[in-house]
């Protein structure tokens, strides 16, 4: 575990989380959530949990992003909140 690397990834994760929450455009929020998942995957891989990283990359960043996009199609793209 390299603490500089950790610090960089954790900072980016927090930025991505705040960005995904405050974004008005739901498609952008879904994509930023995918970036968040990839950063989480990087963090798991860096901590030595390769299997968890693999699951995060395939489920969190791959399938759940496309499911979010499919769900956004059923609603409006803009969020009121």
């Amino acid at each position, binding site marked *: 575990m390299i603490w500089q690397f950790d610090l960089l990834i954790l900072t980016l994760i927090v930025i991505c989380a705040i960005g995904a929450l405050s974004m008005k455009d739901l498609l952008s929020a879904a994509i930023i959530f995918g970036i968040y998942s990839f950063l989480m995957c990087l963090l798991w891989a860096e901590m030595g949990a390769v*299997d968890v990283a693999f699951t995060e990359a395939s489920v969190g960043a791959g*399938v759940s992003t496309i499911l979010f996009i499919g769900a956004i199609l059923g609603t409006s793209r803009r969020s009121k909140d």
Partner: protein
Amino acid sequence: MKRLQEHFEVHDPNLNLIIQTSIRILVPFVQLFGLYVIVHGHYSPGGGFQGGVILGASFILMGVGYDLKKSMELFPEAWNIAMANLGTTIFVGTGLVCAAAGGLFLDYGALSNWIGIEPAAWRSLGIFAVEAGVGFTVTSVMLSLFWDLSSRGELDGGL
């Protein structure tokens, strides 16, 4: 893809050709990698869940690039439901067979009472059977989730 483009107000006819060609080239490799991840789970990171998600994602990619009809040609709806059931049945059935062979539920080593190879080899085979079952279920469930969410349950057009 057409509905996605209309929804997000993109009308570029060339976009579709590039996306469809690259998806057509990419999908066999994605499927091969998914099968590799399931089968090679004993030796490298991966296993039934991850490999199943990757396999399902390859069919989802076909559904995104073309439409749901193309993805349902590759993986018919009836097969999808049957495979989700089959995977769970394989998992539970492996456990029940182990119990019938005189061990505990999911105790693969007990199968050496019937066929006399060493328990370690039976455990390896049992893990493989279980991972294959998980892979079947996850593949079909992920694909059916995508179908239902992207077409609101009508299974036409889609994305």
